[in-house]
């Protein structure tokens, strides 16, 4: 059973030979540049480059050598781009860590130590304050209210840092031959690896509302201004469906998993009631998952942080087959409970080890215990791909990452 077969078996709810493992196939299942740098030194591989492919969160793309070293089963098609040395340049992060940035990302260090991201029109779209490790959004185009028409939405969206500083392959989306390149490069990637392939498509709905209006305003809109929310969501779905059409046509017959994103949960529960989700988001999520299922071989994956237990029945009906990052320490998100109630319908891609307390602050033994307990809860009968609960952040000691993989190895 090769890597891709392991991942597909898990998604098809068959127990694979060896637990499949993800590190870096999405910008929410990866490793920060600083943690990557520390890890490669700890395992004696200082010569590996640390390439920051998601500049917003300062996440490194694990190279082929690291994927081989830790026996990772899935990769993002984004890695098929920016594959020449000249696509990267050397830069030192504010904490002193030497890394590489993609050629197009040139943040402006400020006298106070902050780094600012300014777009080509001179608009400051994000800031990384001194002492922080990723860029925060600074531009909220609809903060003062909804426009009468959303005709300008495609032009407004790049003002949001997630779109304006997008990771590969989307940093090439403006290239004239992008879709042909995406197909050709994904085919070449398929030919050279037996790992499963992921394409990160986003197609966020709730989150785009929070990006455009700002979270506090959009939460109020969900309660007080549903007419405008629905207008915005319709405009977003129209744009997203056009993207999905192109993605499915370009790589839908090559790629295994399409990763949607929409953070619907807080630590204590969903941002909104299941009723509000059903009314505003579920039918629109379903339109998009239906499109993918009808026009590709890809499985549907939803990244949503937080406690989403109360929404899971609706998310399943909305067409999502896989959820990530499975934030096990959030309310109602205990592994046994999730597996028992939703294990037949969902693949849990994540929930492998807690990253908020255990991986960063625990001892290597505590990390191993957490890994073993979670694998034993989630993996019986398939429906599980091991992944840390969200990215491995800069404060994680390499010894704990190594301990994590040693514990995983007991199950593969």
């Amino acid at each position, binding site marked *: 059973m090769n890597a891709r077969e392991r991942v597909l078996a898990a998604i098809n709810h068959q127990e694979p030979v060896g637990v499949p493992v993800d590190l870096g196939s999405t910008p929410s299942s990866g490793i920060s540049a600083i943690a990557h740098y520390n890890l490669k030194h700890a395992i004696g591989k200082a010569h590996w480059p640390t390439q920051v492919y998601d500049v917003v969160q300062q996440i490194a793309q694990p190279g082929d050598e690291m994927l081989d070293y830790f026996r990772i089963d899935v990769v993002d098609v984004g890695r098929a781009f920016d594959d020449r040395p000249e696509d990267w340049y050397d830069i030192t992060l504010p904490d002193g860590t030497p890394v590489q940035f993609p050629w197009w990302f040139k943040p402006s260090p400020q006298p106070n130590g902050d780094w600012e991201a300014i777009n080509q029109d001179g608009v400051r779209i994000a800031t990384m304050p001194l*002492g922080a*490790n990723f860029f925060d959004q600074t531009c909220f185009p609809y903060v003062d209210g909804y426009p009468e028409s959303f005709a300008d939405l495609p032009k407004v969206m790049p003002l949001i840092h997630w779109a304006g500083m997008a990771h590969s392959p989307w940093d090439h989306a403006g290239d004239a031959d992008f879709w042909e390149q995406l197909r050709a490069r994904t085919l070449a990637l398929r030919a050279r690896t037996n790992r499963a392939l992921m394409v990160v498509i986003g197609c966020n709905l709730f989150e785009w509302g929070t990006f455009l209006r700002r979270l*506090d305003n959009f939460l*109020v809109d969900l*309660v007080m201004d549903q007419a405008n929310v629905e207008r915005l969501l319709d405009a977003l779905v129209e744009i997203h469906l056009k993207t999905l059409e192109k993605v499915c046509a370009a790589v839908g017959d090559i790629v295994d998993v399409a990763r949607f994103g929409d953070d619907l949960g*807080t630590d204590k*529960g969903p941002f909104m009631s299941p009723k509000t989700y059903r009314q505003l988001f579920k039918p629109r999520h379903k339109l998009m998952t239906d499109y993918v299922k009808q026009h590709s071989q890809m499985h549907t994956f939803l990244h949503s942080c937080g406690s989403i237990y109360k929404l899971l029945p609706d998310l399943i009906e909305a067409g999502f087959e896989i959820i990530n990052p499975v934030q096990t320490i959030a309310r109602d998100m205990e592994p046994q409970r999730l597996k028992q109630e939703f294990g037949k319908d969902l693949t849990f891609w994540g929930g492998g080890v807690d990253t908020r307390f255990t991986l960063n602050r625990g001892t290597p033994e505590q990390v191993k215990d957490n890994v073993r307990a979670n694998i034993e809860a989630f993996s019986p009968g398939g429906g599980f791909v091991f992944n840390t609960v969200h990215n491995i952040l*800069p*404060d994680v000691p390499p010894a704990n990452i190594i301990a994590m993989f040693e514990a995983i190895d007991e199950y593969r």
Partner: protein
Amino acid sequence: MEEALLDDIFAAILDGDIPAAPGKVQAALDAGLGPEKILNEGMIAAMGSVGELYECGDYYVAEMFTSAKALQAALGVLRPHLLQEEVRAVGTVVIGTVKGDMHDIGKNLVTMMLEGAGFKVYDLGPDVHPSRFVDAVVEHKPDIVALSALLTTTMPSMQTTIDALTAAGLRSKVKVIVGGAPVNDEYAEHIHADGYASDASQAVALAKALMNL
């Protein structure tokens, strides 16, 4: 009559009716109700119910936020009258997101919920250097300093802020409470904070407990 006016304020805040809430407060003032009565029996009572509805799972963050915004709108009308009549707050809080952390939406919700419980809150904003917390404590003499952090990587700024208060000889004069995604009881204890709250509703309960309310 009085009861009906207070009920209207209560309902406007509970329902998150931001446009209506200020008018309901004005109507009560016009009818001669005292600002303290409006605050306590209309607004604080409503936010208490919001907290209870959130705790039992009937309200979600979206509803809590909307009610908090309605409260803010209502307070805009009531605040000058509270000042005029020198209505005393139940306590004073200095709040901010710690150095290096730009995230302030959770902190803003805590601020609004504390105001909804009758506290006077001085909000220093996000990315607050420890020395600014020290200056604010000197200036406002709060009962409580509330520190927020969203990131595991900025959470250590809570410790440096507490250290700065200690170095300035102010630590024993205030209670320090902490909150935010990466924080828990254990961490609060580790940095010698006086308490931890897991959400805005719990933060209100904690602040009240520390004030013996």
